[in-house]
């Protein structure tokens, strides 16, 4: 079989745009053309394009052709692509790769071993143990590494003989022993630490094994040879092992002193590694300096560094600093809520609202600490937070409601904020309703409503119908949102009336969420009038289609189908809407769309075709299982496997 029917190394590299276009067209191409396109795309210099092409290739290229790629001698790109596709097949590669272990060509065997090492399936252990005795040393080296990746410590006796002899095999064995993560591998690795050639690799493997025994060996080695080894590497490994220990080692004053000395005199990387090590060892006189180094280092604000994971004593120091340190303080406080001093927490809470992705950690920490002294800071934070964030903070206010009520009575807070807070703090719904009704001015009332409309019992007692009759222009949006959220079916008739007169996104969404079939004629009217409905610059069609899909029924279905077939809507929106209400007779439409350039349309196809099992749908799903977009192929595969 000629493997390069799509391209050759001599062909000019296709442009980025050309490749992206070709990738979009892949699902619609016949099988042979698809393979040819893949063979062209894998030559592109963009890793994104290559990755997508290889992923598709892994799904659609036959075993026979893949094998021919692996045998390709003249074209390195194709040979490497074969290996990558084999790896990407995951456990599905097992059969082909194990068979090729017996191939007479050692290069083919080598690639099979590499693929099996990548797949990490324990079923490959015995074939790989056999490959360790292959006559080609490159194969032996790769097989040793692959056995290590499988992580089964029973293979240790097979590997130990290779610690003596050929140096490449020795290096591979050290690597593999580290990968096996077994304490049983510590003694043979410890013996190699002083070897000038392989000592550093043995240290790295010991660090990957981790645990008390590996720590003792590495610590002893560092203290004895610290003037001879690279401090950044060695201290980094020690820090890594220390961070992974269940409990910090006791004593170790000599180690502590040696790390402390590096805080000031080492290179930047060494300093940070020493700081991590010291922090992981537990409280000590260098904590302040070490903490500062870690804070100034590259660690991410949203992830608590491992060296701090057990340092509940540092919560106050972390909370007292702005930015990254405070984020870590909240993350640590959420792990050890009782260790967090209230004064520090209260000050941190009052100071500034953390970024949205860290609010969760702050809330988690604060929810566990029900102490009245936090209330004041919380109140300040709430009052200063942007409106978007107040809803996030509201559940937390309830945990401190008694103290907050007292504070509120003493504080100079405007009436609107006072009422909103009172509602969050448990004032009886009927009382909140009475206050809201009394608010003078619709806009002020709406400001309050927007903040308290998250409480179902309150929302249900409000006179929405009355307000809608009085000022539909002002209240229709919020009324529609709460009706959808709390299934307030009583509100459907006035909302439906508004939908006919003043269509807006909230109303359209609400009738869809509530499944109101009587709204379908109005929705159809909006669909017919197209994007310019209601003389608005907004294009309401996507929401109309979505709501029609949610309501379902013959009229809605037919309207969505017409919109798709007449090209009157964005295909992805149309197909999604139809997928919400599709019946079996719609499957032909979805089968025809499995080659659509938009991945979201193809995803809708997978969803619908997976719902209605029949041979032609299974064939279409098989095509989608080779989709270049992972989520589409996974969805199709999940249906096929089911």
């Amino acid at each position, binding site marked *: 079989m000629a493997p390069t029917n799509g391209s050759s190394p001599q062909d000019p590299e296709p442009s980025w745009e050309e490749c992206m276009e070709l990738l979009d067209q892949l699902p619609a191409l016949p099988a042979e053309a698809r393979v040819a396109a893949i063979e062209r795309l894998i030559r592109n210099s963009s890793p994104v394009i290559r990755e997508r092409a290889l992923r598709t290739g892994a799904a659609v290229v036959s075993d026979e052709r893949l094998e021919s790629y692996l045998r390709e001698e003249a074209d390195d790109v194709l040979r490497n692509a074969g290996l990558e596709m084999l790896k990407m097949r995951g456990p599905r590669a097992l059969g082909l790769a194990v068979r090729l272990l017996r191939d007479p060509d050692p290069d083919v065997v080598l690639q099979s071993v590499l693929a099996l090492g990548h797949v990490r399936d324990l079923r490959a252990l015995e074939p790989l143990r056999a490959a360790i005795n292959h006559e080609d040393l490159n194969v032996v080296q790769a097989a040793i590494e692959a056995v290590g990746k499988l992580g089964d410590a029973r293979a240790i006796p097979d590997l130990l003989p290779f610690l003596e002899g050929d140096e490449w095999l020795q290096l591979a064995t050290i690597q593999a022993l580290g990968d096996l993560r077994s304490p049983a591998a510590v003694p043979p690795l410890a013996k190699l630490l002083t070897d000038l050639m392989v000592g550093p690799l043995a240290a790295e493997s010991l660090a990957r094994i981790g645990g008390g025994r590996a720590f003792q060996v590495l610590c002893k080695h560092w203290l004895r040879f610290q003037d001879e080894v690279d401090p950044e590497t060695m201290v980094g490994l020690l820090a890594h092992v220390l961070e992974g220990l269940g409990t910090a080692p006791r004593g170790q004053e000599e180690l502590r002193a040696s790390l402390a000395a590096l805080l000031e005199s080492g290179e930047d990387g060494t300093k940070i590694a020493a700081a991590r090590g010291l922090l992981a060892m537990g409280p000590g006189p260098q904590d302040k300096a070490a903490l500062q180094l870690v804070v100034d280092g590259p660690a991410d604000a949203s992830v608590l560094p491992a060296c701090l994971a057990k340092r509940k004593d540092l919560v106050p120091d972390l909370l007292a600093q*702005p930015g990254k340190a405070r984020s870590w303080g909240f993350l640590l406080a959420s792990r050890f809520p009782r260790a967090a001093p209230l004064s520090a927490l209260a000050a941190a809470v009052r100071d500034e609202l953390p970024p*949205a992705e860290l609010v969760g950690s702050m809330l988690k920490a604060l929810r566990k600490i029900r102490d009245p002294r936090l209330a004041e800071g919380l109140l300040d934070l709430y009052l200063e937070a942007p409106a978007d964030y107040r809803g996030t903070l509201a559940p937390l206010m309830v945990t401190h409601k008694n103290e907050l009520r007292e504070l509120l009575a003493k504080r100079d807070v405007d009436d609107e904020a006072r009422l909103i807070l009172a509602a969050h703090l448990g004032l009886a719904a009927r009382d909140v309703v009475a206050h809201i009704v009394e608010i003078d001015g619709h806009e002020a009332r709406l400001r309050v409503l927007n903040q308290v409309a998250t409480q*179902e019992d309150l929302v249900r007692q409000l006179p929405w119908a009355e307000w809608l009759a009085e000022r539909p222009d002002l209240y229709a949006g919020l009324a529609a949102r709460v009706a959808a959220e709390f299934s307030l079916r009583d509100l459907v008739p006035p909302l439906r009336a508004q939908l006919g007169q003043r269509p807006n996104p909230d109303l359209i969404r609400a009738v869809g969420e509530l499944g109101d079939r009587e709204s379908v004629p109005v929705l159809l009217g909006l669909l017919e009038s197209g994007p310019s409905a209601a003389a608005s610059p907004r294009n309401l069609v996507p929401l109309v289609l979505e709501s029609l899909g949610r309501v379902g029924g013959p009229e809605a279905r037919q309207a969505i189908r017409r919109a798709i077939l007449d090209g009157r809507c964005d295909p992805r929106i149309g197909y999604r809407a139809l997928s919400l209400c599709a019946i079996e007779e719609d499957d032909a439409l979805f089968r025809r769309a499995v080659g659509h350039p938009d991945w979201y349309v193809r995803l809708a196809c997978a969803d619908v075709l997976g719902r209605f099992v029949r041979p032609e749908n299974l064939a279409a799903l098989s095509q989608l299982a080779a989709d270049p977009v992972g989520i589409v192929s996974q969805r199709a595969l999940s249906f096929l496997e089911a």
Partner: protein
Amino acid sequence: MAVTHGPALMTPEEHLLLNEVIERQFGLSFAPAKKEFLESRLRPRLMSLHLRRFIDYYLLLQVDLDSELEHLARLVTNNETYFFREVYQFEGLFAEGMSELRRAGWSSELRMLCAGCSSGEEPYTLNIYARQAGMPGARWTIDAFDIDVDRLKMAREAVYGAGSLRSTTNEQRTQYFNGFAADRWQLRRPNREGVSFAYGNILDLDSFQRPQPYDVIFCRNVLIYFSEAAFQHSIANFSRALRLGGLLFLGHSESLIGKSDRFETVRLERCIAYRKLRE
């Protein structure tokens, strides 16, 4: 008390859909590993809009993107910045960089741009360095733009907290700032002069338009969050906005090597810049 608990978890397809919009509008890309991060950023907005699912937010963006864009920009941008960050690039510019620019024909006003300026710490630090370099005030201008209007407002007010001054020494704090409130400092007026802020998008060439091209563009630690397509688009825009021989400074983990034939690398003391090669 029954309360809403916010939208359902973001599904993988919702993540892809929203990421497409964000990438198209701002160039930012949130890989699958960052799904939860994106979800936590968008969640408060969905709660505020009473939306049950992230697909509802995607549909809302289809209906009226322009009205929502400002909110979206605020939610997804990374505003991590502070004064005197990676100053070796400023030092490099005002030492060897100026000689490079002179060799390329620059002789009068130095026109500089900070693309993706967040709350202004970078352009103001650049301004401080320009003043220290001994350039007469009239001989340089610094334009700065960002897509987050809240951050631009903060930049214009020039009042900062301790986080923004984390790399500022006590001497620098005394020299360049006035105490404003507890733990708040305002940049002194002379250090604010010559810096102008505007709304702008790195992907939109109009954001770069001015009568004459820039001599220097700083865009640091922004492109690392960009997709490959947005990266290429941005580099093309930088190239169009720079004069021939003009210098582009990127963050230390960002590189143009092997990615653009419009620029060549230039070694300046302790940093690397990229010089525009051709029109």
